[in-house]
Structures are given as structure tokens and as C-alpha cells.
């Protein structure tokens, strides 16, 4: 539901960075979005299509890298990747609370010219 305002922030950051780099056009915007960020990539794409016309990023491609949730298992003293957003260790099945990755909402890079 809030993907439009997330995308607004992402795009304004991207356009700022592009201008600073002397770009005349943005070809690709790459985002990293964590599984636990609460953001739906499809909705981001939708917002992107709505927001880019008339900007330097008009016609650009949006590339979203999904970052899976990773937790630290205290019992096994190791990190594990969660495929379902929950913190159950695949080995010992204990529930870990220590989130190591998965909340990211990041503008990773731009392709410009």
C-alpha cells in the first residue's frame, strides 16, 4: 500500500545521484528489497511506471533484487537463511530472534549515461 511513497523516495534519491554524476538519462535503477521490509516488488514496479514519465528515468528499467531474511541461531551459533520470513533454524528448529538481514530497502546502483 505504501509502495508509491517508497518509490517516490527511491526515485528522488536516484535522480539526485544521477544528476550529481552528470547523467542525462537513467537506464536502470537497481533496488535491494528485504523479504521482511513489508514492500511488495510488483507494487514497486507499478509505482515506478506511474512516477517516471517526464523524468530522466523515463523508460528506464527497474531491477529489484530480493534479499532473503537471514537469522542468527544462538544454539547452533551460525547464520541461516529463512525462505518464509520466520526465524526457525533449519537444523535445530529453535526460533531465533536475531535478524541479520531482510529489512533492507536500498537504492543499490544506477545505470546512466
Amino acid at each position: 500500500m505504501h509502495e508509491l511513497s517508497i518509490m517516490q523516495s527511491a526515485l528522488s534519491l536516484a535522480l539526485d545521484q544521477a544528476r550529481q554524476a552528470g547523467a542525462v538519462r537513467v537506464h536502470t535503477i537497481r533496488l535491494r528489497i528485504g523479504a521482511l521490509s513489508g514492500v511488495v516488488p510488483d507494487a514497486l514496479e507499478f509505482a515506478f511506471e506511474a512516477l517516471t514519465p517526464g523524468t530522466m528515468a523515463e523508460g528506464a528499467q527497474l531491477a529489484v533484487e530480493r534479499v532473503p531474511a537471514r537469522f542468527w541461531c544462538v544454539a547452533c551459533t551460525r547464520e541461516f537463511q529463512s525462505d518464509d520470513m520466520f526465524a526457525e533454524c533449519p537444523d535445530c528448529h529453535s526460533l531465533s530472534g536475531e535478524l541479520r538481514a531482510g529489512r533492507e530497502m536500498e537504492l543499490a546502483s544506477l545505470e546512466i549515461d
Partner: protein
Amino acid sequence: MCENCGCGLPGENPVGVSAQHQEQAHGHGHDHEHEHGHEHGPGHHHDHGHPHPHAHPHTHAHSHAEADHDHAHDASDEARRTVEVRRAILEKNDRLAERNRGFFRARGLLVLNVLSSPGSGKTTFIRESVRKLAPELKTGVIVGDLATDNDAQRLRESGAPVVQITTGTVCHLEAEMVGRALKRLDLTGLDLLIIENVGNLVCPASYDLGEDLRIVLLSVTEGEDKPLKYPPMFQSAGVVVISKMDLAQACGYDRDTALANIRRAAPTARVFETSAKTGQGLDAWREFLLQQHQERKALDPLAP
């Protein structure tokens, strides 16, 4: 409910087609003399008398009458470059949230961000919490709603100073809104600030407001599997409050399942089972907040 739903989108984007056409069909490599053998439509005039050593995006507006020319220029490829950015999309909100946090810490204020679906009982729970804490902790409340100040009025019944944020079409509170609301709230003598977020279990999870603790409410009427349906929100909770326990029997609430699901989505969260109506669980909740407040004050020796 929110402007972010994306209504009113433009339809197909004709510009995108021609941009692609220019780029793919006419990628010009500009380190050579132009020797276009193609026909230009009327009104087209670019100067072919000089070499183009520069690498700029090629935006000739020429329209080729014949589609069979096949010169393989490529301006964009050679000029294209990647800029690494690696910055948080919500960095502005995060920065303002940290500013709020510093402001709160300097005053020894304990700050709660209270989140739930609409109708879970946030307002009543906060009102009763304020009453319960009144002898020891003086509380102020900031309440966010899409429209109306009904909740603010109900909260004022507790005797606490209340500031309303009407978000209009925005489905969550942001750090900046809280920062502005603080200017309207007299913080003198306050120990605790409770922020009642907009009723929504998705969007507010992404926005730090500068709080010390996130409190997520789940009422027994909502179904035991809610934590499994909204993992990002529950995962971010420091405390999960189960509300409306007085209705548990009437709605066939399965306590074991609910607790197991909360544990799964929020393994480290403290859980309180409460009823604002009967007062169940409010003593334990009060004790917890008093202790949190003491710890908060101990963090900043300069705080009053």
C-alpha cells in the same frame, strides 16, 4: 484508503516505445563520420559535415521513412556507466527518526509506537494504560488517523495531553509528522509518550518514528493466525499485546495456537494478555513500563 494504492495511473506509455526504438534500432557509435544513407523525412536537419567524437545520448528526432536501413550505431552503450549508490531509500525518515530519538532521550522520555489493524482496540488500551500509570508516570499521546479526531477525544478522557495527526490519505505515520506534532505537545513533566499509529499492519512497519519500543496489538477477535499473515510487522515488535481477552471465550479464541504463532513471528517479543475492559493484565503491563522507564532514564544521566 491511501493515495499510495496507485489509482489514476496513466495508460500505456507511447514515449517508452520511441525511446526504445531510438536506442535499439539506432544505437549510433559516434566516433565516426556520419554517412547515413537513409532518407530523412521532412523537417529533419542535422549537420553531417563534421565528425561526432563525443558520446552523448542520441536523440535525433529523425523519422526514417524506410525501415530497412541497418546501420549499427551505438551511442548509449559506450557512454553507459554504473553508479554504485547503496543508500537506504528511507534514509530521510531514518535521519529524522534519529533526531526524534535524541530529542526524546535528552528528556528521559520513554516512547512507544503502538501498531495494529484497525479495530484491535489501540485507543481503549492506551486510554486505560494512561489511567493505570497516572500515579507514577505522566503520559502524553500522539494519535494518527486518516480522518476525524474521534480517537483523540476518547484519549483525552484519560486526562493525558493529546495531539492529533490527521494523515489525510497517508496510511502510516512518518518521523517528520511526529516531529511536527511534538511542537504542539507540552512535554513538560512528561515521562512517557505513546504514539498511536494509523490502524494498518503493513505500511507503518517500514517507518521508524524514533520510538524505544514497538507495541503490536492483536485482539482475540482477529484470528490466531494474524502473526503468520503479517510477519514483517510482528517481527519488528518489541512487545505484543493481546487485547480484548474478555471476549476470548465468546469468539472461541485458541490461546495456545495464538501464542505459538506470535512466538513464531516475533520470537523475542514480550507478550501481555490484556483486557482494557476488565483490567486483566494491566498490572503486569504497568510494571513492565515502569521498569522500561527506569532503564531509559538510566541511559541518560543528564535527563531530568
